[in-house]
């Protein structure tokens, strides 16, 4: 049976989107059109029936308000740097509606656990008290239910781009969440996946019409065979998730290769593994069909360029089928389906998944259109930031050029600062080094050429818009090649985020800082010395306490360095799970206590950030760092000023543990060098500095006549110093 598409699908998109939708190619069923004519007649009859029944019952026949079509879509953001983002894996945060607990199994880490949007609404008081101002919630779209014993509780296995995942609620519930947040001036950021869909088709490599684990090859010697006489070269492949082949996944029969493997959509409604929706996404040509990424590092014979090719065109592990996002129709469709969510649910920004698995050119089209759409419906200052899960700072920076995403997750800082310095006690100079490298030029040849080509193509589209294009596209390329490109673009995006005065903000001002997230082990897991079976209770407690000290130390940096801080849910409750899925704990198991030490410390940091504009918007001037092997009172210290027009805040961090490797207690750290000189600061001589983070403010530090100051602070602590009133 050729079932007609679901009623109202095209209408939903048409209502949400201002222009003719590429997705309205969904064949409009004749019966639907006919029903529009009969609706008028039935409406009269229904009115009559309604009156009759009303007369009988004295109950009014009032239709429900339903989802709010006149939703308040105003953006409350004046400057995204003022925001503190709190990341929530919806399934794991709070269960507010037990009725959507389908397939829930709390015993299995990789199953649905019951959290939902209502649960977040229930905990807004808690979040408000903590002080967060923006929520990033995991994807909302309907997913393939499960695969290989793993459930889609995380939301990244899209089956329908425009339906809600009913495990979390319906559209009305989502609107209620966003509305409830907006009433508290909390913004809501949606996690979107533009790179791939769930595992909805298989490659019919052996052309037998069913998904198999196939073996092919043979007939010649191969490595690894146990056949001592004549090894076979036999290869094993899963038709769900075959390895990358740059020609496209090839079919194979006993007589050899047999062209591109056909794409077979699967119909397993019991796990919602059904063809994607809207139906336009059922076009096999909309997928790259090259198989699973196998190369993740620049290793062996794989060049950086080849790795990037695989990452961009390959299926994401788990058989998540890669969309051909170089195609204009795919770009248009993705723009429409995600614009739909801005319109229907009122989101304030997008967190974009798997950024590095898409060509930057996709975002040069997607992002401006999203910005334009958001602006059309009154959402100015819509923020889009992407996840390029890579410590390669040049790669991260390359996405900031052009008109693509506004920002990226600052993975380089995650690895080089939060892990190396705060979790593993590395040299604090690495923080300054990374900061300075933002101005460095991109050195990777393929990144340079691709980024320059892209920038020039965009810049030279409008005649006279960019002086570098005076001698055309080629001239632009020549000029930029000669000058070199900084890692991060220094140019704000058109219609992109601005400050309160409407001045555009660049990516380096909007970098998303984080100490952990749902894809990496929790900070405490990494920073806490490993427990051993022989540890006694005192040792266990000491190790955990050390982890907590390191965590709070890292949070102090997170909340005071430039960029936008992002806190992973449960950090404030000392959650300490290891790699996925252990790092996605049920928040309700530890509770929502507001008196824990980490909770109170984080809350104080957020309050300090809110109270001091310099901590949010000020420039960074590093004042103190130390190298590995440094000795003396200043070793392990890190200090920087945040300087804004209104004020300057001096941040001093002591990253030393309370005891050294021998177990001896460490003395106070002091910003004093080997010549007993204090730390140079920008405060005028004689200034008295007071710590606004720790307690009463009785402890004061005076800047000497040389403009230097000695700040003392205990191991794993921080001071936020401003001029005493």
């Amino acid at each position: 049976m050729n079932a007609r598409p679901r009623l109202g699908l095209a209408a939903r998109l048409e209502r949400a989107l201002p222009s003719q939708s590429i997705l309205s190619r969904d064949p409009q069923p004749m019966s639907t059109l006919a029903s529009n004519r009969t609706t008028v007649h039935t409406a009269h009859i229904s009115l009559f029936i309604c009156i009759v029944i009303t007369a009988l019952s004295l109950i009014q026949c009032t239709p429900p308000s339903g989802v709010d079509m006149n939703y308040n879509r105003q953006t409350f953001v004046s400057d995204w740097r003022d925001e503190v983002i709190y990341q929530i894996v919806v399934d794991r945060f709070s269960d507010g509606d037990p009725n959507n607990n389908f397939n829930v199994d709390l015993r299995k880490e990789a199953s649905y656990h019951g959290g939902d949007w209502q649960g977040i609404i229930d905990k807004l008081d808690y979040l408000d008290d903590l002080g967060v101002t923006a929520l990033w919630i995991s994807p909302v779209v309907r997913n393939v239910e499960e695969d290989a014993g793993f459930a889609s509780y995380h939301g990244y296995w899209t089956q329908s781009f425009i339906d809600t995942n009913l495990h979390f609620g319906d559209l009305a519930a989502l609107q209620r969440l966003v509305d409830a947040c907006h009433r508290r001036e909390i913004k809501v950021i949606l996690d979107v996946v533009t790179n791939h869909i769930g595992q909805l088709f298989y490659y019919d490599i052996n052309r037998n019409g069913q998904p198999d684990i196939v073996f092919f090859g043979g007939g010649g010697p191969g490595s690894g065979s146990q056949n001592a006489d004549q090894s076979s070269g036999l290869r094993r492949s899963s038709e769900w998730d075959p390895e990358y082949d740059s020609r496209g996944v090839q079919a194979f029969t006993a007589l050899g290769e047999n062209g591109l493997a056909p794409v077979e959509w699967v119909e397993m409604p019991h796990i919602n593994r059904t063809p994607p929706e809207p139906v336009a996404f059922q076009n096999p040509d909309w997928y790259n069909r090259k198989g699973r990424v196998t190369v993740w590092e620049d290793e062996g014979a794989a060049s950086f360029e080849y790795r990037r090719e695989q990452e961009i065109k390959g299926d994401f592990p788990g058989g998540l089928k890669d969309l051909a996002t170089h195609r204009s129709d795919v770009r248009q469709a993705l723009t429409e389906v995600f614009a739909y969510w801005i319109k229907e649910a009122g989101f304030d920004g997008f967190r974009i998944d798997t950024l590095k698995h898409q060509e930057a050119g996709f975002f040069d089209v997607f992002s401006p259109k999203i910005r334009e759409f958001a602006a059309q419906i009154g959402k100015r200052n819509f923020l889009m930031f992407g996840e390029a899960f890579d410590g390669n700072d040049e790669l991260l920076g390359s996405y900031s050029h052009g008109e693509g995403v506004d920002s990226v997750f600052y993975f380089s800082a995650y690895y080089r600062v939060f892990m190396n310095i705060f979790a593993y006690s590395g040299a604090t100079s690495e923080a300054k080094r990374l900061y300075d490298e933002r101005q460095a030029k991109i050195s990777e040849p393929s990144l340079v050429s691709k980024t320059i080509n892209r920038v020039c193509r965009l810049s030279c589209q409008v005649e006279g818009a960019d002086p570098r294009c005076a001698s055309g596209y080629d001239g632009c390329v020549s000029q930029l090649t000669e000058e070199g490109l900084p890692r991060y673009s220094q140019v704000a995006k058109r219609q992109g985020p601005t400050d309160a005065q409407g001045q555009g903000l660049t990516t380096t001002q909007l970098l998303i800082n984080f100490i952990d997230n749902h894809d990496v082990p929790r900070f405490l897991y990494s920073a806490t010395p490993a427990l051993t079976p022989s540890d006694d209770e005192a040792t266990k407690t000491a190790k955990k306490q050390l982890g907590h000290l390191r965590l709070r130390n890292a949070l102090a940096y997170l909340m005071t360095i430039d960029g936008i801080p992002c806190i992973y849910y449960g950090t404030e409750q000392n959650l300490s799970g290891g790699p996925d899925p252990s790092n996605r704990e049920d928040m309700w198991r530890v509770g929502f206590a507001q008196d824990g030490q980490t909770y109170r410390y984080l809350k104080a940091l957020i309050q300090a950030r809110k109270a001091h504009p310099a901590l949010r918007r000020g420039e960074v001037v590093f004042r103190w760092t130390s190298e590995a092997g440094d000795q003396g009172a200043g070793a392990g210290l890190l200090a920087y000023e945040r300087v804004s027009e209104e004020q300057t805040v001096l941040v001093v961090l002591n990253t030393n543990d309370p005891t050294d490797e021998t177990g001896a207690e460490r003395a106070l750290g002091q910003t004093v060098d080997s010549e007993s000189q204090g730390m140079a600061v920008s405060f005028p001589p004689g200034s008295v500095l007071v710590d606004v983070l720790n307690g009463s403010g009785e402890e004061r530090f005076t800047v000497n006549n040389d403009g230097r100051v000695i700040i003392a602070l205990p191991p794993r602590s921080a001071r936020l110093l401003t001029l005493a009133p």
Partner: protein
Amino acid sequence: MHFISTFCVRRLCLRDRQAVTSSPAPFSVHCTKTSRALLLTLCSMMITHSPVWSQDSEQTTPSKPLSTSSKSAHTPFWFGSYGRVGLSTDDQGGEGQKRQVTPYAPRLIEDNYLELDLGYRAYRGRHGQVDVVTTISAFDQLFHYNGNADAQLALRRMYAEVRDIGGTQVWTSLGSRWLRGNDIYLMNFWPLDDLNTLGLTLGHSGKRHEAWIHAGVSRLNHRSQTQYVDVPSANNFGAESVLMLNRQRLIIASLYERRYSLGKRGGWKWKLYTEYHALPSGEETLEGSFTDQRTLPDDAGLIAGLQLGMWGVGHPSNHLNLWARYGRGLAIYDELGSPSAVNRDKRSWDAEEWRLALAGNWGLSTAHGLSVQWGSYIRHYRDADELSVDYDDRVEGSVVVRPQLNLNGFFTPAVEASAQWSQAGGNHPVTLSTQAAQVYQLALIPAISFGRGAHLDAYTRPQLRLIYAVSFLNDAALSRYPERDPRSQGEIAHYLGARAEWWFGRGGGY
């Protein structure tokens, strides 16, 4: 007789081999050794004692109406039955299917169904009279239609009732039974009281009143109430299956009815009815384990309702009933169902339902025997979750009207018009529409009915009828069906069918 008995058993239980080789449908009742024995006994009793069976078997001429009561003055046995059976087609040649968007809707298009009653007056004397009643029901599985030698059988009634205890008007009954009041025939719907339990009833019946109180239980074979779990054996290798979850729902119901005369043969009445439901807490054992458990909290519910009724004015079959009922919590879902939603405490107490219903039958013209049956109700339902915009919440109702002629004491053609209207409390999860689902149906029903001439009315049975029905559905009604259900495709649905319906000899508190 031996032939008939054998025939009966063969027909009902024919398939020892097939039963073990075919895949059973969920909840189907197989013809097990027990049910075979039961049927054999039943058939034998019918053949031996039931005058109706004998009469029917002897091919009574159609013009001679069958007795509507089989209770014999000469025998303590009686036999009764309710049945409906038929065939149908749609405009594609398939089996006709009804279109329904409200929980109670016109019954015109319905499944085949059979009830067989068997009663025996076990005692009559100065201590009272004792009847034992058994009813076996067979659901829609006809071998001649689907080729499956299978049946879905249910033992619905099995109870003993004692009347006139000690010469008083006190009565009691014990066992599995239903306790029902007046229904809306056109919808197969009891708007106020329709209780199906295993329980004990104590009542008092007078000329002008009826009163009873009932305490019953049900424990559905559903994971929320019953769970057997394999646990390590106490004293042997392997496992033993243990009843780990054992939650009975307790239902306490009461009724008081007061009747008054109206005119020469008519009367009117009022009735108060209540139910209280209680379910204890329990521990559900999680799948794949015999130690991991989660608590299922206790739950409760209640129903309170009122009926006003009038009958026998103008014509013996004239009647008019008005019901109002309020329900809350567990009781809304009746004793054979489970709550569809719960609150944060995982209880259904916050669910609410209001019902208001009106139904009746009225003779309009004695010259041509024109009568009009109608039924209507409206219901407001809110489930126990706290969602203010909720597709599961409903305000809905249905109206059905069936004028019928009695042209010559035999030919009883009718037409039926009906409307169903269902407004959800939220958006459709797929279409996001808030449109009310609507189904309108018009039917022509040429029929022949067999009853005593003077008393021929809309309820005279047996009746054989032809049905042509056309249904009109709006988009919201179509979207109530799954996307790929053919019924979601057509705004107009045709039904052509032939059906027979009978009831007779219903004894024992129907």
